[in-house]
């Protein structure tokens, strides 16, 4: 007798798809439902784990779009210390869907970012990006200018990208009761002073996260014609700490389960929205925690590599490798600077030849 299961692929059955395989041979976990290729401008935002996407995309020749890049010539160390090249703008971590919505409202001019600041000795921190500069800013004016730069860059990312990758990280959040806005970190941890009257904890539930995420996606899409496709992921990294009252392990599982469920629902509900299972690859039982570092929290480079290998395996063959126009312009400018450097090198040699009668290159 025929029934729906008779026509299913092997991947739908545990034994052949998982149970009878080495964990590293588990495949077909994901297939891209829309075109993701090297011509598409991809932006990445979200929790810490999102930054692995930017690196992997860049390494494989995809067009990861950095709307707030470090200047050409800056060392990678300096850029990293100042959080350039981590996400597609220097937003810092956007842990929650509601923070994504907050940034989106600022970027689209629906709301102004509150002009609040934290003082740390004689330095000034941005409460919305508290670790963005290694030692903070010299003045409030400078901090606000830097934040506005990142908001403009976030807007540019929204307006120019083809694919928006967002990694959901947390359900637990801290809000300002007076201003009605959300902090990425609890005041008093990295900076600022905790005020129990003003700073309230909110462990976001399924409905709130779902509404925030859908709202953010719609706003980003509607900001222009042919808005981006969305790729949602859930960070597999457990919570560092919980304020929920639960054990941190229980709180982590609850938090990730809610985020996972929201991501699944939103990806089914909205067109051109997909979910990529990085969370499952790292966290599910068949992988036995192999991809965690000994602290069972940080994901090892092997784990990241395995996640990204799975991601690229789910893409159809990339037909073209040509770059978008704006990147061609950037390359042209790079080339110009290199040419000038070579010209000056030549001039150096000539200068030395004249003065010292030899060159040492």
């Amino acid at each position, binding site marked *: 007798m025929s029934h729906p299961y008779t026509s299913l692929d092997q991947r739908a059955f545990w034994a052949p798809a998982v149970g009878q395989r080495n964990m590293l041979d588990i495949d077909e976990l994901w297939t891209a439902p829309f075109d993701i290729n090297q011509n598409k401008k991809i932006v990445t935002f979200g929790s810490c784990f999102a930054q692995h996407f930017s690196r992997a995309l860049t390494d494989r020749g995809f067009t990861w779009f950095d709307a707030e890049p470090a200047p050409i*010539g800056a060392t990678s160390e*300096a850029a990293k210390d*100042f959080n350039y090249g981590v996400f597609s703008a220097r937003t810092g971590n956007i842990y929650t869907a509601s923070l994504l919505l907050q940034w989106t409202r600022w970027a689209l001019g629906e709301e102004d970012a509150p002009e609040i600041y934290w003082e740390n000795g004689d330095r000034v921190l941005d409460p919305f990006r508290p670790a963005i500069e290694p030692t903070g800013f010299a003045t409030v004016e400078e901090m606000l200018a*830097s934040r506005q730069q990142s908001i403009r860059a976030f807007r540019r990312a929204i307006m120019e990208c083809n694919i928006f990758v967002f990694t959901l990280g947390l359900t637990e959040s801290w809000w300002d009761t007076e201003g009605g806005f959300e902090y990425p970190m609890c005041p008093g941890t990295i900076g600022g002073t905790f005020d129990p009257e003003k700073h309230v904890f909110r462990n976001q539930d399924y409905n709130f996260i779902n509404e925030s995420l859908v709202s953010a996606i719609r706003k980003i899409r509607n900001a222009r014609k042919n808005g981006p496709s969305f790729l949602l992921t859930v960070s597999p990294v457990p919570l560092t700490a919980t304020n929920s009252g639960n054990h941190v392990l229980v709180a982590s599982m609850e938090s990730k389960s809610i985020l996972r469920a929201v991501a699944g629902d939103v990806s089914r509900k909205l067109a051109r929205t997909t979910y990529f299972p990085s969370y499952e690859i790292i966290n599910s039982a068949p992988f036995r925690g192999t991809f965690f570092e000994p602290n069972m929290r940080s994901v090892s480079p092997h784990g990241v590599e395995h996640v990204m290998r799975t991601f690229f395996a789910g893409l159809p063959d990339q037909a073209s490798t040509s770059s978008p126009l704006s990147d061609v312009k950037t390359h042209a400018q790079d080339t110009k600077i290199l040419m000038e450097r070579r010209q000056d090198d030549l001039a150096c040699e000539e*200068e030395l030849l004249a*003065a010292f009668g030899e060159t040492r*290159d």
Partner: protein
Amino acid sequence: MTKILLVGDSHLGAVKRAHDANPERYPSFSFAYLGKGGLAKTRFFDVDEAKGSVRIISQGWRKLDFCRSDQDLPNLVVLSLPVNTSRILREMSWKTHVPWRLRQHDNEVALSDGFVDRLIDTDSGYAIEYAAALTEIGLSVASLEAPRFFEDAPYLKRCRLDVIRYIDTLYRQRVLDRLSDLGIGVITQAPQTISEIGSTKMEFDNERPGDMHHANLNYGQIALQQIQDFASQHLGMRTSALK
């Protein structure tokens, strides 16, 4: 006889040519060209504290060693390396990125003061450390400021003059402060060679038309005399004693 050794990058060229034009006037001077200034951004030297030695290790640079126990150490080392803005002005994209105070256009990315300071420190750090290492083995060291940019510098065609001036001034001040903290004197660019806009006057531009950042023989003569005057003052000797 007093020995003054001029060590450094290609900006020594103008000084060397000035010296060669009149060697009898500056018998105490000798030159050790290290190599192109671009390598100064990397760790180009090594220190052996036990031996009290400092040696150049960069491929492509002259292997110049100083050791505390050397009998013929110079009385003064004049280093043309730390105060040189040409790398940072030429190799950074000051068209697309500007210090936050100077941002005017939508397509300019604002940089924080901290990041600009970091760019300067990264560019100048090893050269300053080299100067410091030489002083630590007992050498008297002074730094010779490289000439400011010329009006025909290629990057001025794409970058705003006020941005270039800002970076140039900030760099020099920051490096001068660090050298001063280390007790290292600086022979600054002669005022008569600096234009109203803060560049090196075009009359001191290199003789070769294609060279847009080295100075010429006349500039070298002025710098040479400045070094002579500095040495006289610093070494506590009359100019004649240096000859």
